[in-house]
C-alpha cells in the first residue's frame, strides 16, 4: 500500500514542533509496511487534493496564517469536495481557523476563510496559553496537550471533537473543542497531539489504513515508550492540572 501525506505550509505554519505529527505518522505507517511519501507544499506550489491520502496543516503566527489562507482560498471548492468525499484532514493549532467562515484579526479586519464550517474566529488582545486535558468518544484514554493561541471560536460547534475537562478549549471556560466531521479532524491542541497520546495515534493510524483496505492485517503497534510517557505525565501532573484555579 502507498500513502501520500501533504504537509501544507511546512515553512509558514511551523510553530510549536507541530512537524512532529508528520514524523510520527510516517514512522507508524511504515511500521505497518506502508510506503509513505510526504509532499512538502507551500504558497508557491499548486495543490491537487486528489493526489493526497491525508492533508496536514499545523500552527503558525497570525501573520503567516493569513499568507497561507490567501493561497488556500484558491482551492476552496476542491477542499469542500475532498472533505465531503471523506478525504483525511488533520489540522492542529490555529490552522483550524482556516476552515471557518471568517477570521477577525486584532485590528478588527475581517478575513474571509474557507467557509466549510460555520464558525467565526476572533483574535483577542491577549494570548491564551495553558495545559489541556480533553475527552473524546473516539478513544477511552483522555487526551493531553497544550494550547497557545491568540484567538477564540465562540460559536456553538456543530461537530466538536473534544469535551474540555481542563484547558482553554475553543475559548476560556468553553466545554467543547475541535471539529470531527467525516474524516476531518481539527483541534487547537498542540503537543504534538498524536505524539503525546498513543491511543489517539493508534486510532488515527488504524482509521487511515482501514479507509484504504478494510481487511488490512495490522501488525501490533510498538508504542511502549509513548504509553510510558503518557502514563508518567498523568501520574505526576494530572491532579495538579485538574485542580489549578
Amino acid at each position: 500500500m502507498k500513502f501520500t501525506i501533504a504537509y501544507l505550509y511546512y515553512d509558514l505554519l511551523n510553530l510549536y514542533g507541530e512537524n512532529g505529527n508528520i514524523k510520527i505518522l510516517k514512522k507508524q505507517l511504515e511500521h505497518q509496511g506502508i510506503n509513505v511519501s510526504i509532499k512538502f507544499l507551500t504558497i508557491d506550489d499548486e495543490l491537487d487534493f486528489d493526489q493526497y491520502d491525508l492533508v496536514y496543516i499545523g500552527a503558525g503566527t497570525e501573520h503567516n496564517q493569513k499568507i497561507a489562507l490567501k493561497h488556500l482560498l484558491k482551492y476552496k471548492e476542491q477542499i469542500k469536495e475532498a472533505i465531503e468525499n471523506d478525504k483525511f484532514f488533520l489540522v492542529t493549532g490555529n490552522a483550524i481557523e482556516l476552515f471557518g467562515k471568517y477570521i477577525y484579526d486584532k485590528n478588527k479586519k475581517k478575513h474571509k476563510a474557507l467557509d466549510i464550517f460555520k464558525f467565526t474566529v476572533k483574535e483577542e488582545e491577549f494570548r491564551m496559553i495553558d495545559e489541556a486535558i480533553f475527552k473524546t468518544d473516539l478513544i477511552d484514554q483522555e487526551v493531553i496537550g497544550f494550547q497557545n493561541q491568540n484567538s477564540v471560536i465562540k460559536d456553538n460547534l456543530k461537530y466538536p471533537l473534544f469535551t474540555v475537562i481542563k484547558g482553554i478549549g475553543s475559548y476560556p471556560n468553553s466545554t467543547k473543542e475541535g471539529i470531527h466531521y467525516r474524516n476531518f479532524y481539527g483541534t487547537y491542541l498542540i503537543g504534538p497531539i498524536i505524539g503525546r497520546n498513543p491511543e489517539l495515534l493508534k486510532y488515527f493510524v488504524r482509521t487511515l489504513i482501514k479507509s484504504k483496505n478494510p481487511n488490512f492485517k495490522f501488525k501490533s503497534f510498538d508504542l511502549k515508550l509513548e504509553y510510558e510517557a503518557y502514563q508518567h505525565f498523568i501520574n505526576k501532573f494530572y491532579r495538579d492540572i485538574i485542580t489549578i484555579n
Partner: protein
Amino acid sequence: MKPFIVLICKIIGFILRKFNKGSAYPGSLALKIDENIFNYFKMPKITIAVTGTTGKTTISNTLTAIYKHAGFKVANNTRGSNLKAGILTCLIENANILGKIKADVLILEIDERYVKKVIEYIKPNYFIINNLSRDQLARNGHFDIVWEDINAHISSDIHLVLNADDPLISKFSLYHKGSVTFYGLSKTIYSKNEPALNTLDLVYCPICNKKLRFTYYHYGNLGNYECSNNDFKRVKPDYEAKLVSDSSFMVDIVEIKMNSTSLYNVYNLLACYTVASLSNIPKEKTVEAINNLSLKIKRLDIMTVDNKDFILLLSKNETPISYNQSLEYVSKQKEPKTVVIGFDRISGRYNLKDLSWLWDINFEMLNDDSINKIICVGTFAHDIAVRLKYANVIPKKIVICLSSDEMLKVIKKHSLKRIYCILYFDVEKKFKKMLKQEA
C-alpha cells in the same frame, strides 16, 4: 520623596548584597512605592542597551571589559536580573540620591519581553538587537509578538545596532527612522546550503511575502538572504567579520580572538566591537580588551571521574536554536561516546509543561554510529525518549533513568570514555553533585 525612595532602596540593596543576595528586591520595592520612579534617573553620556534571544550577558560583559580598559567607569546589570525590577535595581545601586548615574558608561541587558517596559526610560544611545528566534513559547507566544513589542517602543532618537544576518533583526531597520548600523559575518567554510533546523522563523519577505532565497546559512535562519522582488535582503554590514580560524575573526583590519569556537560567539564579540567603534574607542583598546578577556564565557566544562570524561553542555530548554547547537557540537565530535540528556523542570520561570519545543530541535543529529547509548534523565525522560525514537535513534540505544542511583548504575555499566551531558540547570546541579561524590 524620590531621593528618599532611592536612598532607602540603596540601603536595602547594600544589606542584601552583604548577605550575598543579589536580588531585584530594591527595584520592585521602589516601583511599589512610586510607579514613576524610573523617570527619575539621569543616564550617563554613553548608555547601551542589549537584547536578543541569546548572547545578552556575553555582550554586556564584553562591553564592560572594553570600556573599562579604555579608562571609563562602567555600571551594568550583568550580576542581577534583566527584567524591569532588576534593571531598576541596577539604576538605584549606581545612582546618587538625585538619580544621577555615577558612571561614564551604563550597559544594560534587557530581557526581550521587557524592552517595552523599560526602553523609554533608559533612552539608550545604542541599542544592540543581537538575534530573535523561537524561545520560551509558553511565555512568549511566538517571535512575531516579541518583535512587535520591541518595534513599537524604539523611538527614532535611538541608534540601532543590528545583526544583518538575522532577517528578523534586519526587519527592524525597515521601520526605524533613526540611525542604524549593521554587523554581520561573511560566508565561512562552515556555511551550509540547507538549514540545520527544519523549522525556521522568518523565511518570507516582510514586505511582499515572497519566499526569501538563502545563498547560505550560518545556523538557524541566519545567513545571506534576499527576496526575489528585491524588496528585502541582507544588507552589506557596516562591520563585517571574516572567520580566520576556529578561534579568531577579522573585522576592519584587526584580528579578534574568541575563547569559544561557536559561530554565535562571533556575533557577540562583533556587536561589541561595533558599538565600541561607534563610540570612538580606539581599535587597539577594543581588541586588547576582547583578547585579554578573562570573562567567564562558557568554555567546555569537563569533570573526570573513574577515568571517564563528563563534558557538561548546559542547555536551555525551549530555545531550539541554542539547544540545537549543543547537539551539533556533540555530533561533530567523532570519537565513540555516550550522551546524557535531561531536565526536571521545563522552565525556571513558570510551571507550564509544554513539550512541543522538543520537536523543533533536530535530535536527528544524535542518530549516529559513534554514540553507543543515549541516557534520558529527569522528570521528562520518557518524553525525550519518544522524541529520540522518532529521530530514528535505534531503540536499544535509548535508556530511561528516573533516579540518580539508577543513572549512576547505567553510566557505570554502559558509558564509554567520553560522555556528553546535555542538561538543564536543575539536572546539571544534581549531576555535578553526584559526580563529586563519586570522585
